[in-house]
């Protein structure tokens, strides 16, 4: 089923003309309404009227996460705060969160793109959607919620956690659609197995899973163990939240709602726009947002775009599953962590030298993070209590700086791999590729 055939199955000509019209309108709008953009455009010596074709977007400057932090809290809003009817923030641990403001129209558009998303995975008004994304400032919970209401499904706003109760509800209410992170889906599957619940006897048929990187192997596992079709959802707070892109049951990429979010792929090194099919960093421009339109927002997510009509009938461009980041950002249990901040905190502890390695693993379903720190002759004490104290001191300091408790392990000097060029500081063993 397709929620909005007109929007999702446009011809190239229809789409391009709609996108251009919306892009021109948005560029002019932000230039007039947001001092940040006016300043940036002036610095780049570009006037809104110079955007004459879609390709002209490359003349506009990029917007980065740091710009949003700088504008904290409401600096990126294009309307007075009074017209904002809802606020969400990102889940970062460093400094100020990213703030996103939504007008009434923005919420309507969000509901619309989420309606498309849920329809794409096979949901309709007869379904019971068990929404285990967190409700609150995080966009996941309410994003799914608005989509569910739009299509008229029955939504269970249950959030994550209390897994046994989730399973009880799933059985009693006959949930047919599951929405959560892939790791939580696997955890649910495991607890269901422990409780002796047969997945086949549940009524689940599909689910959209996202908010963290995952793989085809994890998909197979979720599908097998929960007996449903597992599809990939993509979105980010800066742009709107979930609803930016969704995979259809053909499983050959995520359809971007490009009539609302204009995608580009750039080379993170040259910042040039790359041709279709090439792998690079995804850049998004919100061409219909009212409260907080983003111009050329650098997502730092690495993917590629693919054109051509999909077997599902949609013509919306497809993006590959995200395979990495163009910066060093890590998501640990859904929380954004920058290894560079861990390093900074680490080196602030007296006696610690920059020989360390951050190891991220997912032993079962939940992420674990550990920092291995090489002990130096100066740090080495003959007494266990001194070393334990040092270890705790490092852990405390990192926690104070980044807001996350990370296990520190002291290792022998020169035991961590050295390299000629860039040292491999982060070992992510979660295997997303």
């Amino acid at each position: 089923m397709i929620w909005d055939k007109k929007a999702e199955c446009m011809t190239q000509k229809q789409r391009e003309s709609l996108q251009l019209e919306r892009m021109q309108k948005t560029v002019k709008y932000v230039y007039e309404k947001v001092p940040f953009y006016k300043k940036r455009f002036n610095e780049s010596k570009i006037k809104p009227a110079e955007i004459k074709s879609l390709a002209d977007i490359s003349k506009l400057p990029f917007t980065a996460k740091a710009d949003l932090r700088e504008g904290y809290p409401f600096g990126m809003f294009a309307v007075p705060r009074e017209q904002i009817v809802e606020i969400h923030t990102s889940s970062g641990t460093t400094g100020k969160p990213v703030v996103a403001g939504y007008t009434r129209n923005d919420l309507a558009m969000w509901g619309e793109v989420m309606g498309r998303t849920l329809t794409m995975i096979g949901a309709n008004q007869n379904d019971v959607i068990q929404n285990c994304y967190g409700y609150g400032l995080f966009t996941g919970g309410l994003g799914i919620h608005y989509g569910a209401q739009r299509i008229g499904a029955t939504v269970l706003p249950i959030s994550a956690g209390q897994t046994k109760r989730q399973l009880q509800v799933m059985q009693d209410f006959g949930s047919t659609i599951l929405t959560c992170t892939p790791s939580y889906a696997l955890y649910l599957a495991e607890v269901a197995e422990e409780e002796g619940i047969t997945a086949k006897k549940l009524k689940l048929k599909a689910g959209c899973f996202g908010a963290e990187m995952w793989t085809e192997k994890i998909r197979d596992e979720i599908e097998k163990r929960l007996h449903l079709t597992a599809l990939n959802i993509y979105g980010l707070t800066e742009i709107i939240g979930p609803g930016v892109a969704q995979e259809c049951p053909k499983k050959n990429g995520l359809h971007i709602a490009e009539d609302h979010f204009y995608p580009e792929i750039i080379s993170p090194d040259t910042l040039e726009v790359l041709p279709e099919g090439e792998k690079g960093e995804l850049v998004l421009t919100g061409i219909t947002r009212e409260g907080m339109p983003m111009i050329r927002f650098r997502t730092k997510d690495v993917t590629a775009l693919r054109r051509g009509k999909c077997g599902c009938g949609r013509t919306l461009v497809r993006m590959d599953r995200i395979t990495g980041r163009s910066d060093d950002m890590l998501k640990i249990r859904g929380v954004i962590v920058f290894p560079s901040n861990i390093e900074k905190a680490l080196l602030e502890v007296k006696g610690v030298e920059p020989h360390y390695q951050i190891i991220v693993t997912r032993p079962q379903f939940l992420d674990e993070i550990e920092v291995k720190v090489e002990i130096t002759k100066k740090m080495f004490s003959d007494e266990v209590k001194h070393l334990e104290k040092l270890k705790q001191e490092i852990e405390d300091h990192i926690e104070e700086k980044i807001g996350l408790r990370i296990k520190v392990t002291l290792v022998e000097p020169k035991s961590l791999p050295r390299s000629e060029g860039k040292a491999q500081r982060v070992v992510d063993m979660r295997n997303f590729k």
Partner: protein
Amino acid sequence: MKLKQISVFLENKKGHLLEVLNVLSKAKINIRALSIADTSDFGILRLILPDPDKAAKILSQNKITVKETEVIAVGVSDKPGGLAEALQALNSANLNLEYMYAFVAKSKEKAVVVFRTENINAGIKALKKAGIPMLKAEEIYRI
């Protein structure tokens, strides 16, 4: 009275203790006494060897983190209450014992125990005052 002890940082990994012992074995250094303090992540290997300076040098050359620490070798009467008597001397002087471990071999009917007190000189003084015999470094290396 003071005795040099070599401490080695050991990651809690398979084969690491063996590595250290192999280095000593190749250098034909015999171990007189040893103890390991361990936590879940790492351990500290403490060694008494005939030529601690040489051993420290060789271990360092083999990229092993070592530290030389001073300890006291106490000759404890090999009878019930022998060790308690030595500890009582420290207790009376209000001194903390950081750690201790025993030699396997005996010296003249005395059991040899290594003490690391919080203040090594005060420790020696307290033991001396209580008449607890201590062994000289040379005597230990000859055991």
